[in-house]
């Protein structure tokens, strides 16, 4: 391929058809008039039936089709969590944490934030907050304090923690698969900055809430008399789950070295846990997989495949290059800040699904002589990937709709009679989002451009 042909995008009726499907689908997803999974599947169906994308391409070609790596990694982790959930592990951890904090509200807030962040780094954010938030509401009732600051600070911590690892948040899973980045790559490049962000975050919490959270000694006694071991409903299954989870994490750490995909590790882990859980009927664990999310991914991948094939993404990447003049520091910063604000208001999953091929196309323009991993892992390109991950994950904190975990917590608070308005969430979330992205900006700048 010569440089000239790579710079051309043929704009014909197929191009417009694909672009229209893409734009309308995204607009309807943002409007929330129709469930996003249905929209994604309709869009995918149109791409196929109009032959913009052949079914073979959608199902079997990596460049255009469904990213099965992402799909199977998500499904497998969901199965593991489904088996683990009813054991009472999360409730145990939460009650234990509250006791460790001796019922002191500020300490509870800080410990809960740390626990939520760590759990979210290895398990999905929604499950983590879905199980920690009810305990938080109970603890707040026991201490007779307003639960809202606790819930919001927890969900913000969950989104921060999820940024730390390859499996922490769906954008990272998608970026890892497309950019061929390993679990260790994320540990080396993102975990340090996330730890730094957490320290800053906790400091801010102490500053804001240090003097405001008060309770009485007799109320703390309610917490101290709770017996966390009563939360464990199936100790045997819990031990098995933790054992397998540990194996899976070790597998993730080693996957790059042994040249396995993360999905392989997770799939084996899920299968092994199903085997040793002694279940006669895996139906329940499999049915509980969040199939709407999985099919949302499948539909999206096909829609994106269509617009990649017709050249829309390449056209967009040329525009970005025009804007940044090929300056990669400017590109990183643009990607990070744009991603943060975009993810605060729209679902970061379709956003990252679009950005991944865009960045790859951009790299093709910049270094036409390179191919595959050599291109994807070009040292100058790496900070762009990390900026995308940091922006897309941390951006979720900006508003109440920025991340699925936020939506869950707001809904739960409302049903418990504690309404969190869009504005109230933003009052906490937006400053924290901006602060964490500033820390990320400094990190990326210092680590990849100064030294």
């Amino acid at each position: 391929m010569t440089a000239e042909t790579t710079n051309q995008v043929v704009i014909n009726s197929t191009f417009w058809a694909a672009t229209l499907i893409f734009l309308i689908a995204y607009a309807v997803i943002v409007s929330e008039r129709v469930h996003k999974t249905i929209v994604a599947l309709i869009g995918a169906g149109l791409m196929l039936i109009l032959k913009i994308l052949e079914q073979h391409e959608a199902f079997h070609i990596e460049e255009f089709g469904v990213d099965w790596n992402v799909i199977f990694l998500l499904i497998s982790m969901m199965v593991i969590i489904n088996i683990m959930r009813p054991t009472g592990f999360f409730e145990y951890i939460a009650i234990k944490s509250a006791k460790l904090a001796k019922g002191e509200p500020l300490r509870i807030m800080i410990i809960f934030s740390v626990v939520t962040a760590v759990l979210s780094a290895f398990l999905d954010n929604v499950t983590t907050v879905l199980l920690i938030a009810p305990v938080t509401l109970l603890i707040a009732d026991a201490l007779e304090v307003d639960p809202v600051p606790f819930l919001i600070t927890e969900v913000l911590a969950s989104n921060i923690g999820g940024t730390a690892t390859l499996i922490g948040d769906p954008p990272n899973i998608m970026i890892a698969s497309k950019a061929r980045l390993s679990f260790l790559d994320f540990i080396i490049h993102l975990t340090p900055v996330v730890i730094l962000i957490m320290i800053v975050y906790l400091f801010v919490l102490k500053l804001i809430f240090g003097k405001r959270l008060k309770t009485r000694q007799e109320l703390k006694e309610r917490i101290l008399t709770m017996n966390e071991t009563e939360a464990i409903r199936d100790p045997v299954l819990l031990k098995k789950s933790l054992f397998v989870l540990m194996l899976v994490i070790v597998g993730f750490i080693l996957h790059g070295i042994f040249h396995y995909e993360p999905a392989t590790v997770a799939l084996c882990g899920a299968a092994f846990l199903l085997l040793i859980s002694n279940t006669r009927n895996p139906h329940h664990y499999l049915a509980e997989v969040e199939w709407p999310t999985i099919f949302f991914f499948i539909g999206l991948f096909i829609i994106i495949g269509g617009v990649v094939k017709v050249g829309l993404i390449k056209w967009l990447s040329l525009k970005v290059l025009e804007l940044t003049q090929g300056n990669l520091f400017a590109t990183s910063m643009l990607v990070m800040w744009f991603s943060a604000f975009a993810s605060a208001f729209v679902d970061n999953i379709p956003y990252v699904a679009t950005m991944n091929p865009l960045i790859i196309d951009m790299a093709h323009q910049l270094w036409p002589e390179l191919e595959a991993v050599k291109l994807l892992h070009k040292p100058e390109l790496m900070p762009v990937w990390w900026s995308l991950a940091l922006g897309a994950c941390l951006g979720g904190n900006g508003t109440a709709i920025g991340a699925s975990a936020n939506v869950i917590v707001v809904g739960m608070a409302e049903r418990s009679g504690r309404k969190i308005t869009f504005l109230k969430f933003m009052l906490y979330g937006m400053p924290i989002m901006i602060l964490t992205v500033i820390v990320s900006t400094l990190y990326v700048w210092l680590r990849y451009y100064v030294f």
Partner: protein
Amino acid sequence: MRVKDIMEPLIDYLSPDNTLKEAVNKMRVSRRSEKEIGVKGMIVLDQDKKLVGIVSIKDILRTMIPAYMSYTELGEFTWDGMLENMAKRVADKKVNEFMTKNVITVHEEDPLMECADVIVRHNLQRLPVVDKSKNVVGMVYVRDLYYAIVKTLLDTEA
């Protein structure tokens, strides 16, 4: 026998705008029979006397339990005085917020077997009885059906 032969007249009912506290009081003073005072459930009629819901003591109990406890099992971690606190907190909740809205009814001309089937299938204690124009004309309680059975068995023996 048909439902209308065993049903009891409708005496008291709740309004959707009643508070939980008012509802509890109405149920406490409502006359069940000559001797007994206090009922364990009551239907809810709107301004036009249309049936809009039913409240049982279980609905009231459910209202006491905080919503977050339904997400996961937290019963072991509650404390002395929590239920009493919650009761005070929800005292002003409106009946239409906690009543069962899907009310199962029987028609006054329905045979008793249908009535028994519905009560057992849905695990009910009481059933509003309606006429052709869907107005509530009475109530059938589990005990009314049971008395009908007792009467059948013991009268034939005698």
